[in-house]
């Protein structure tokens, strides 16, 4: 393992600090040593000087001089005595005198003897000696005769000063002995000082040695600790479940643990020193990796390092790649910067994630398929239901007694409700997609409630339930609202109440909240009740509470789900209160503004906006009546209309000049609408970017999606609603939209009464002719496809002029054309015939 430091910055600072302290300590120590050396040198100098003083003969052999003083005095005395004895030796007297005289001058003048002479008695003695000399000079220098005669006197004087000479000599011995003593003491002191300092220096050196020993001991301990940490780190790395790779700046592998061997398949021997990039980076990532390393080496810019957990692919020895999660960080080491990375093989995790995503996708797709199935089923239910209702209508037109007529009315009401119900179930996809809008019209609220109660009273009676209606407060007679949906809501709730109540009471209460347009509806039963825990759940789709209920009552479990959606669609809220065994109250509140006038049609019925921009619209539609209706509608919206009779003609026309909008029928001979749209979109014509809106009699959500995929921008369903058309025009042509709110497909409102009659008659004629052809085709043994195509064309006509029942029948027939059996087709044609005859077609 390379030597790593957990935090390079702090470690660096620590090191720097220690280094500085060490240097400072060293400098101080050297200073002390230097000072000591200087002091020792100075003291040595001092001692040497003192010793030198001993060597310098300040005293000239001073003692000897003093001794000579006495000796030469005695020699002079002796010479005098000799001369007195034999009268000769005068020259010797003179020489001895001169020598003694010189010596006396030295004792008198020399600085060496100043201390001696300064002693008072000695000074006096010296004075007497000088007196002797001065007195003798005239005698000595006075000629032989004078000298010979003066010898006696000279001898007397000599004898007189003899004690003085002796005293001077002895005093000299004392002084010089003292002086030597002082000198010796000085030397001794200097030597002692020197010794003290040397001892101090020795102590200092010992202290330094102690410090150094301590420091080296600390370093040794620290090394031992480092060694422990190192081995611990080594253990951590080698037992890590994740692969650990350490690389240097050149991406060479410096360390590689056991987990890495297991994960990548390379042995440690193979990996160490190898280029990591060649080892574990997959081919398709290598260029990026090398570029990253190069960038880092050149600029020091880190992208991956220190960025936390990252996910990439890595390669094993056998060349297979697998997903890894890794983190990488840089650290300092004696070999320079290194990168430490932890890698984890997350193949299994990624696999399970993928599995989860797939499972979710499957579930979503299943959900969608279920929704689609529901929509298709409902659609298929509508066809026979329309048959029942149509036949009831025919039955009503026959001679019936009042009782029978009442039965027919009840059947008709129930059938109509059922049709609404089916339609609404079909709308679930629209409701869930947020596309549905309330269809607001004026209706009589009390009548609606009573009507529903009446229509369900029979069912209630069957289970021994009394059904009553109670109206509270100032309920407006005529209100604005979505009557069919309100009817459906009430029908669902009442139906449930009847289902779950036996021999009880069911009450419908309607109450207008004071001072507002909000109405609260309550459906109260005395049935089995619901547990509080289920209050929320029962509004979910396909929920039936438990097995016993399911046995007692039948239901899809959709009723309350739809009911809640509807209440929300109408801007209301819904809830339930219940006690097990006591019954339930389902309530909902809806805003239902009172209608201003009883029979007004929606007031926003103005036609062309005077200031609306003139737009050019191409209508591609094979059905003449449809073309005419669309044209009329567009002209009233101040549009310029160009028509084409099929897809091919549409594509050709679109190639000639630009349009603001193209309305495209889907099912057309020669070329259908989706193909035509694709050609216009993929071509180079002037309408490549023009919005294209599909026109279709009925469209399932999947179909709409398909239209959009082929490049269409929106879908208009037949029968055409003026409001939708205006919306599409303004949305797609980017113009202000009229403030129309109410969806109103009343053809009269668009075309006017006269025109409507004409159009409807034309339509009836066309439909009758179509019917004849249908019957002929059927008689020929029925090419189902031809019947389907014809039915489609006829359905379009019926839709445009608002023949809803006929449209529905024909649309069903269109579907049956391709899939249905001969008897079913026959029945369907029969129903169309019945409906047409009802409209007075010939």
């Amino acid at each position, binding site marked *: 393992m390379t030597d790593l430091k957990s935090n390079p910055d702090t470690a660096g600072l620590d090191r720097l600090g220690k280094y500085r302290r060490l240097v400072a300590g060293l400098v101080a120590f050297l200073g002390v040593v230097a000072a000591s050396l200087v002091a020792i040198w100075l003291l040595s100098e001092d001692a040497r000087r003192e010793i*030198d003083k001993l*060597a*310098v*003969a*300040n*005293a*000239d*052999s001073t003692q000897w001089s003093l001794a*000579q003083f006495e000796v*030469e005095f005695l020699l002079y005395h002796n010479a005098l005595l000799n001369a007195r004895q034999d009268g000769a030796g005068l020259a010797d007297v003179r*020489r001895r*005198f*001169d*020598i003694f*005289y*010189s010596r006396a*001058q*030295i004792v008198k*003048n*020399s*600085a*060496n003897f100043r201390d001696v002479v300064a002693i008072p008695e000695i000074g006096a003695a010296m004075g007497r000696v000088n007196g002797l000399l001065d007195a003798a000079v005239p005698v000595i220098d006075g000629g032989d005769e004078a000298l010979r005669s003066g010898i006696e006197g000279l001898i007397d004087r000599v004898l007189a000063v003899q004690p003085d000479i002796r005293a001077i000599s002895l005093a000299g011995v004392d002084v010089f002995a003292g002086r030597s003593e002082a000198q010796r003491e000085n030397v001794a002191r200097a030597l002692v000082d020197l010794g003290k300092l040397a001892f101090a220096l020795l102590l200092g050196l010992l202290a330094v040695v102690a410090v150094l020993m301590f420091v080296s001991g600390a370093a040794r301990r620290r090394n031992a600790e480092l060694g422990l940490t190192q081995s611990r780190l080594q253990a951590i790395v080698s037992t890590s479940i994740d692969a650990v790779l350490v690389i240097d700046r050149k991406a060479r592998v410096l360390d590689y643990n056991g987990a890495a061997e297991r994960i990548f398949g390379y042995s440690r021997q193979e990996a160490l020193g190898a280029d990591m990039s060649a080892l574990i980076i997959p081919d398709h990532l290598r260029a990026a990796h090398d570029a990253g390393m190069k960038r880092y080496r050149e600029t020091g810019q880190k992208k991956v390092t220190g960025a936390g957990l990252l996910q990439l692919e890595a390669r094993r020895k056998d060349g297979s790649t697998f997903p890894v999660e890794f983190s990488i960080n840089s650290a300092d080491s004696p070999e320079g910067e290194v990168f430490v990375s932890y890698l984890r093989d997350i193949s299994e995790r990624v696999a399970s994630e993928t599995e989860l995503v797939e499972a979710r996708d499957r579930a979503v797709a299943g959900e969608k398929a279920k929704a689609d199935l529901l929509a298709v089923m409902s659609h298929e239910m509508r066809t026979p239901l329309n048959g029942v209702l149509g036949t009831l209508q025919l039955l009503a037109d026959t001679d019936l007694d009042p009782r029978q007529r009442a039965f027919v009315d009840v059947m008709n009401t129930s059938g109509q409700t059922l049709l609404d119900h089916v339609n609404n179930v079909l709308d679930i996809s629209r409701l869930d997609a947020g596309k549905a809008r309330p269809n607001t019209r004026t209706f009589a609220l009390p009548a609606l409630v009573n009507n529903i109660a009446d229509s369900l009273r029979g069912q209630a009676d069957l289970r021994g339930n009394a059904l009553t209606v109670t109206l509270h407060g100032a309920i407006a007679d005529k209100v604005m609202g979505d009557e069919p949906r309100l009817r459906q809501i009430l029908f669902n709730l009442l139906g449930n109440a009847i289902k779950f109540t036996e021999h009880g009471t069911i009450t419908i209460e309607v109450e207008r909240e004071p001072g507002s347009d909000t109405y609260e509806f309550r459906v109260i039963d005395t049935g089995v009740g619901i547990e509080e825990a289920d209050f929320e759940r029962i509004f979910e789709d396909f929920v039936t509470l438990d097995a016993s209920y399911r046995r007692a009552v039948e239901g899809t479990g959709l009723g309350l789900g739809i009911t809640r959606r509807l209440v929300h669609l109408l801007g209301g809220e819904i809830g339930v209160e219940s006690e097990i065994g006591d019954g339930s109250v389902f309530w909902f509140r809806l805003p239902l503004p009172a209608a201003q006038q009883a029979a007004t049609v929606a007031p926003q019925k103005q036609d062309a906006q005077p200031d609306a921009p003139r737009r050019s619209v191409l209508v591609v539609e094979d059905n003449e009546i449809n073309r005419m209706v669309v044209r009329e509608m567009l002209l009233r919206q101040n549009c310029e209309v160009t028509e084409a009779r099929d897809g091919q003609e549409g594509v050709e026309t679109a190639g000639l000049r630009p349009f603001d909008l193209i309305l495209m029928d889907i099912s057309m001979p020669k070329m259908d609408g989706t193909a035509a749209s694709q050609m216009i979109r993929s071509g180079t014509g002037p309408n490549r970017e023009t919005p294209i809106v599909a026109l279709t009699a009925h469209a399932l959500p999947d179909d709409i999606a398909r239209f959009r995929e082929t490049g269409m921008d929106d879908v208009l369903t037949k029968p055409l609603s003026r409001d939708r058309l205006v919306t599409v025009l303004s949305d797609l042509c980017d113009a202000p939209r009229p403030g129309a709110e109410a969806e109103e497909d009343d053809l009269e409102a668009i075309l006017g009464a006269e025109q409507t009659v004409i159009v409807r008659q034309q339509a009836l004629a066309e439909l009758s002719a179509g019917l004849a052809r249908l019957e002929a085709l059927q008689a020929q043994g029925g090419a189902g496809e031809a019947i389907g195509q014809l039915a489609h064309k006829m359905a379009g006509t019926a839709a445009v002029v608002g023949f809803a029942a006929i449209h529905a029948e024909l649309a069903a027939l269109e579907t049956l054309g391709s899939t249905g059996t001969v008897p079913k087709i026959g029945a369907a044609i029969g129903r169309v015939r019945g409906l047409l005859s009802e409209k007075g077609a010939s």
Partner: protein
Amino acid sequence: MSRILGLVIVCATAWLPAILMAGEPLLTVSGSGLSKEYDRAALMEMGKVEITTTTTWTDGQQTFTGVPLSAILADAGVTAGTIKATAINDYAVAIPVAEVLGQDWPIVAYELNGEEMSVREKGPLWIVYPYDSDPAYRSEIVYSRSVWQLDRLEIEP
């Protein structure tokens, strides 16, 4: 040996009048087969060097005038051996010739403060070093070699 010495003394005595005429000899250089005498004029002829210094034997600054000892040795042809410098009171000290040859110091002073030195004033000659100029000249040995009342140099091998 003593005969040869006797001969030398006889010869010297024979020449004594000439010598007296030339002046009283102040310094005798003898030994190693030579014997030379120098009077004041001869010494003064050989050189005149002044040293102003204090001495351990006198009080205050003194100016000595004399001839370098090395010059006397050169004149006498002495190149090796030891000089035994002796004073009138028979004080004697040995000075190695090698330590003197080619040196400026010491001098053999014949004047002190511009005047001849009487025996009473430590004359007639005085071996003097420039004591103040260097502590090395204030050593026991130098002091011992500073012979005053000098009157002869004997050269010993």
